């Protein structure tokens, strides 16, 4: 663990811009009292999440905001994590200098791209209250924790250390803290509730970091807890070399001057992704640079020529030089099922659909789009939907209107998918929330405030495509709901109204109440399936019942099939009617003949799931007469699923892991497995019914 912590500390590059901060704090998220607090929380929590991720620790994060002086708007912020901690000698580096992460050299997806860093918090605290930031850090290899008060000399860009000491870090339960970091600072700030608040920031953070356990104690002493919903850490992201399409002149110059390579060919081949030796030679030929030229001694006009060759503006034999796309395994999407869990955790609602697009490339930068949509009664029906924007797992809370992600949402005509939208433009209205996450090695913002993503056609297109697909899922859900309401009406008709008509007419005419069976069969003239999927608190199981009603005048024979989350590791219990497995996640029961007016109920429980994992059971049937409330089994689809399973089973045994396959998502689902973790499994629902399910 210590190795990780030290290596991470060394990677930080020093940039002397503390003076710049003092003059430009409004650019950096410290422009209002409310926002300053959010920014401070953001810097601390992002650091904690990044550190935990890199050290492969499941993060436990605690945030506490206390009002010290309400009149003067003085607030104390304390954050604590269980990350690797920072070695004592690195503390002043981490907290005392403005850091730029490592993005100029290593290209990868990281949260750190998005803020000025924790130093900004130290600086802001000092500027507004004159107080130093108290840091307590414990690394695994040492028995005690290091404590120190950090201040800043903003002109010299140097940390000032006071009250250095070591202490035993005891936890409230009396045990000793193994490793972690605690920061306590006082600043002029204001705590506020609402859409732009610390609460909202943490809530959103928890949605896209389902592996994190986050606790927040607000100034009123109220504790908000967002528990961890998965033990699976985000995939370790690999650094990649920059791609020629995404390189700017200044960067190229610096890379050349710092290069140790002797020849331009090897420099290009070794330092860029997507450049083969052949491509390197072609690029140099196009830029009219000698292959043997030393990178360090390249002339000014040659830089420009090379950039033009990179961009395909300089041709070779009348054609731009062909380059390979950069690898996309440097991205770490959250993945559908986990977004679903995250959303369900923080928003209490009925329908959730999520999807992760295949990674793709824009201007030499790999990116990947993930979206989620939640719909249901818990939210306001007459207000614009809540838009939850994220870049590299960091919530974006300001400048919603100017953001590319919002524009993509607005570009969809949501009316066709069942949401209100005046004129088919703008953010739709309805009881829904839409989540958009952009994972990229180079997130482009509209400004230094880093709250809105800059326009980019390829990204917009990807988000839009994802929105359309989710929209289709929503429409399907609403149609299903409508159908169910219709069935419900029919039940009310035959169970309540017809008997009442019979009783009342008999009473008025003073005659006996007639037998209703004939009328009911005539009115319904259908076979109806009703399924119920409920979480059983006592047994911690999901209980499923499927009831079949024969409201026709003839005897009927059916095979009923049900989807179940076998792939998620669930087991079926208490299934007294036996049946057999038809495919992974599909169980079938051949029923006895059902006479007119007869009903039959199947029941079983699913074990090994958590609450909310499986909330709706899709029912299928085989038989000649249609069944309302069930879908006729598509035998071809079933065969296809079976075939796919065989193929996957073969592939899995050969799988070596590590790469993201860029082929179509719908047939894969299993392919992006990292070496050390279990691959994410999608459920039978998605295979059989498309995306989306009731939650």
């Amino acid at each position, binding site marked *: 663990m210590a190795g990780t912590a030290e290596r991470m500390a060394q990677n930080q590059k020093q940039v002397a811009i503390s003076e710049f901060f003092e003059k430009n704090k409004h650019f950096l998220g410290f422009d209002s009292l409310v926002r300053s607090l959010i920014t401070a929380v953001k810097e601390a929590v992002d650091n904690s999440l990044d550190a935990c991720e890199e050290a492969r620790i499941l993060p436990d994060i605690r945030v506490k905001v206390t009002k010290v002086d309400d009149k003067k708007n003085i607030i104390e912020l304390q954050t604590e994590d269980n990350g690797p901690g920072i070695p004592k000698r690195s503390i002043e580096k981490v907290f005392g200098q403005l850091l730029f992460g490592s993005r100029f050299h290593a290209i990868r997806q990281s949260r750190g791209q998005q803020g000025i860093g924790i130093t900004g918090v130290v600086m802001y605290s000092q500027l507004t209250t004159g107080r130093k930031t108290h840091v307590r850090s414990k690394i695994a290899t040492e028995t005690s924790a290091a404590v120190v008060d950090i201040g800043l000399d903003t002109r010299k860009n140097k940390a000032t250390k006071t009250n250095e000491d070591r202490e035993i870090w005891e936890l409230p339960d009396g045990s000793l803290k193994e490793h972690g970091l605690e920061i306590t600072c006082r600043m002029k700030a204001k705590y506020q509730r609402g859409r732009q608040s610390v609460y909202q920031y943490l809530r959103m953070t928890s949605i896209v970091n389902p592996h994190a356990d986050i606790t927040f104690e607000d100034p009123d002493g109220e504790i908000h807890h967002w528990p961890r919903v998965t033990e699976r850490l985000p995939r370790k992201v690999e650094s990649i070399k920059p791609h020629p399409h995404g390189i700017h002149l200044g960067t190229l110059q610096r890379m050349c001057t710092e290069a140790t390579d002797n020849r331009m060919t090897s420099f290009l081949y070794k330092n860029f992704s997507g450049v083969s030796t052949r491509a390197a030679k072609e690029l140099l030929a196009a830029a009219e640079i000698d292959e043997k030229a030393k990178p360090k001694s390249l002339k000014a006009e040659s830089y420009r020529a090379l950039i033009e060759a990179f961009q395909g503006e300089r041709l070779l034999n009348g054609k731009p030089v062909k380059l390979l796309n950069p690898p996309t395994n440097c991205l770490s999407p959250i993945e559908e099922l986990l977004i679903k869990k995250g959303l369900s955790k923080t928003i209490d609602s009925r329908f959730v659909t999520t999807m992760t697009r295949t990674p793709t490339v824009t201007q030499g930068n790999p990116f990947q789009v993930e979206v989620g949509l939640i719909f249901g009664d818990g939210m306001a029906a007459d207000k614009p939907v809540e838009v939850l924007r994220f870049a590299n797992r960091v919530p974006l809370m300001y400048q919603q209107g100017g953001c590319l992600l919002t524009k993509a949402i607005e570009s969809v005509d949501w009316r066709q998918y069942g949401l209100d939208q005046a004129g088919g433009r703008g953010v739709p209205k309805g009881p829904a929330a839409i989540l958009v996450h952009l994972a990229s090695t180079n997130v482009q913002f509209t400004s230094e405030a880093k709250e809105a993503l800059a326009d980019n056609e390829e990204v917009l297109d990807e988000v839009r495509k994802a929105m359309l697909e989710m929209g289709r899922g929503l429409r399907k859900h609403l149609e299903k709901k409508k159908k169910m309401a219709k069935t419900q009406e029919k039940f009310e*008709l035959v169970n309540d109204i017809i008997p009442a*008509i019979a009783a009342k007419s008999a009473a*008025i005419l003073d005659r006996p109440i007639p037998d209703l069976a004939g*009328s009911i069969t*005539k*009115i319904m003239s259908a076979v109806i399936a009703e399924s119920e999927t409920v979480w059983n608190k006592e047994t911690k199981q999901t209980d499923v019942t499927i009831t079949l009603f024969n409201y026709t005048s003839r005897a009927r024979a059916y095979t009923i099939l049900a989807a179940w989350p076998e792939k998620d590791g669930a087991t079926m219990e208490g299934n007294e009617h036996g049946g057999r497995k038809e495919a992974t996640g599909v169980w079938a029961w051949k029923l006895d003949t059902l006479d007119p007016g007869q009903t039959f109920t199947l029941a079983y429980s699913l074990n090994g799931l958590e609450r909310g994992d499986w909330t709706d059971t899709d029912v299928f049937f085989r038989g000649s007469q249609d069944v309302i409330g069930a879908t006729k089994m598509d035998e071809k689809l079933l065969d296809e699923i079976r075939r796919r399973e065989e193929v996957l089973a073969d592939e899995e045994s050969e799988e070596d892991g590590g790469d993201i396959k860029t082929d179509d998502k719908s047939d894969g689902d299993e392919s992006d497995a990292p070496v050390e973790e279990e691959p994410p499994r999608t459920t039978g629902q998605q295979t059989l019914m498309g995306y989306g399910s009731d939650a």
Partner: protein
Amino acid sequence: MMSASHTPEETKAALHEVVTEMYDKIVKGEAPTMTLPVRTKNNIGFDNALGVYKYGKKRSVRDATSLGSAKQLLRALHVVEFIEEMIDAGKSSTLREMYYISESWGLGKFSSQNESNNLAEDLEVVTKCLREDFKLRPEEDGARMIGNLTLRELNRRGEWMRINARDDVGDSGYGVPYNVEEEKIELVEHDINFIMAIETGGMFDRLIENGFDEAYKCGLLHLKGQPARSTRRILKRMSEEWDLPVVVFLDGDPWSFRIFASIAYGAIKTAHISEYLATPTATYLGITADDIEAYDLPSDDLSSRDVDALKAELSDPRFADAWWQEQINMMLELGKKAEQQSLAKYGLDFVTDTYLPEKLADLGLA
């Protein structure tokens, strides 16, 4: 006269037929039904014998295969039961009271007053009984009347009162009660040449202030917009029993045309009792479409709803004659409508000194 009314026994028997239709269907193993005439303009036709528009032969069957119509049937049963209870107890209730009473009918409860009004009409149409037979009263009050005509009304103390609608009333005139049948109102004598039915209260009061009823020896009847059943009924009785011409003076817009049609030919909603309510001899005096031009009246543009209403009237059998087709088309061409009171453009006396005398002269009434 009131040959329309039925004895309590006849009424109950007619209602039981409705119930029996439902009951028998259940016994036969079918969905219960209620059969009733189609109540739209597509199913009214001119009855030569009666001289009014009546429902045709088109029937619709309301069957209990959908939740909505099944609930309608159940409500009808509750209403039947309620009516029988009132008949037996010698009580009556307003339609609004019935709506509130339905609160205790569980699944058969009405969800709006409109629904209960429509159902009462459905039952009238199916059973050929009147809502008076059902002991159901409308909320609406009748119109006001002024002029030298005398009638006798049975008051609530059971005494017959003789009332002259000129000498025994104040400026607001005689108030027409909701029941104007013979058991309640007797037409005694008159000294007038015609009756004028007027749409708006403002115009009614204008004619009274100007002494028009005396100057032209006429009875004035305020319709209060779309006239209530009792207003149309008393107009018909006076026209028939006293053999008096009836002229109708309304605004010049598509809705006034409909008011006139309901007075003269029968309303679509009450076509089952048109012969008791309609006055086929009534004449439309104005405001006509050509008045707007001829008198250069201040006018408003037709709204899209007005235009739709006019277009619907073109295919309404009650407006099928040449004069109405011309008036409706003319109004569509003009794209204008005008109120009665727009005549005030030429002064307060213009209507009584010029407009009405000219129009009445065309009819030979002045």
